[in-house]
């Protein structure tokens, strides 16, 4: 029966396995969903580029057998934007952590959404800066204990779906690592959207977030996701903020259309230059 293989296997650099992620970490689960989405969407892998920033999630770029780039901290979106503008035929995926995308990379996130750059952003939100020891992130829920807030976080957290919708994203969804089939479907759906798509995946970091907050291990967290998640497609994103132990609203929140950045560039130049506007020469993916 050796012709049966794990569906994720062809997308992995198996020589790098086992990976560094801790037992019960959710990042690997998101990679399974991503692989299933690639299979389902029948996307041409030659046209695909995956870009990560720095962090535990950022390691995805090093584990996938795809054209991938592990950029500097916070700069996955600008690097991906450059790829997409230089070679518009590429399907560019940004795969990174909540800290990378919304703290050090926060401005890139909102401006890429505002410009509607055609990127598929998968944000693994473990509510913390995991790789560096569990510091408070902009996504850490109020009262949570972290290495930089031993008496509890006093800051209000970013509600990422609300943030990116307000900034202009055309597709916004949230799932947890419990919702594997829904997550795979959302990723596949985002491949069919033109414009800035953002998928948040709430994911356990048992080692640094759950442990300090006495929330159990990875499996306990998965059971919490199962019990406390509520699917509300089209929910107003202003109402989907997260708390430490409360309800998690999941679903597809935003699915709308507006011209993406390159369409706007072309329209503006055609309007201003008329016949003098010449389309950029086509590039070959190689």
């Amino acid at each position, binding site marked *: *029966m050796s012709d049966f293989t*794990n*569906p*994720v296997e062809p997308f992995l650099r198996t020589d790098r396995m086992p990976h560094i992620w801790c*037992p019960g970490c959710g990042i*690997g*689960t998101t990679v*399974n969903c991503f692989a299933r989405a690639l299979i389902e969407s029948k996307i041409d892998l030659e046209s695909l580029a995956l870009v990560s920033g720095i962090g535990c999630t950022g390691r995805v770029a090093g584990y996938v057998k795809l054209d991938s780039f592990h950029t500097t901290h916070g700069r996955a979106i600008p690097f991906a934007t450059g790829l997409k503008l230089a070679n518009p035929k590429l399907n560019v995926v940004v795969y990174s952590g909540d800290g990378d995308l919304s703290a050090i990379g926060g401005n890139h996130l909102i401006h890429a959404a505002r410009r509607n750059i055609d990127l598929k952003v998968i944000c693994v939100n473990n509510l913390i800066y995991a790789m560096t020891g569990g510091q408070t992130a902009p996504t850490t829920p109020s009262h949570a204990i972290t290495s930089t807030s031993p008496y509890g976080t006093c800051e209000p957290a970013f509600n990422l779906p609300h943030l990116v919708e307000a900034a202009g994203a055309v597709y916004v969804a949230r799932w947890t690592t419990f919702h594997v089939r829904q997550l795979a479907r959302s990723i596949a759906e985002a491949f069919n959207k033109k414009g800035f798509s953002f998928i948040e995946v709430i994911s356990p970091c048992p080692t640094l977030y759950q442990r300090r907050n006495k929330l159990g291990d*990875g*499996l306990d967290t998965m059971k919490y996701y199962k019990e406390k998640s509520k699917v509300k497609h089209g929910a107003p994103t202003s109402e989907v903020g997260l708390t430490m132990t409360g309800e998690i609203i999941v679903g597809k929140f935003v699915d709308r259309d507006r011209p993406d950045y390159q369409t706007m560039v072309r329209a503006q130049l055609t309007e201003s230059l008329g016949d003098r506007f010449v389309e950029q020469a086509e590039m070959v993916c190689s």
Partner: protein
Amino acid sequence: MVERCKACGFCVEFCPTKVLALSSAFNSKGYHPPHVVNPEKCSGCDLCGMYCPDFAIYGYKLETGQAHVATAASAVHRAQRGPGNQSTGVEDEG
């Protein structure tokens, strides 16, 4: 594959028909990988494969190739078998 398992228990907990249990055997890193306890209940749905953060398990459906039983494709599970497990007709990836 068995060596990749870190015994998180996701596959055991979320298998819809409770096919799996963590075994008492160890892999070389000292984790207890799952083994198949109810092979006849496996539908090959591959939920265990989607959950496994360590890419250490997956399910699949086995086609019989016979038209009259096309809807009754038998399901097998390719899980890890720790030493001392019962042989249950389950595939071993090695």
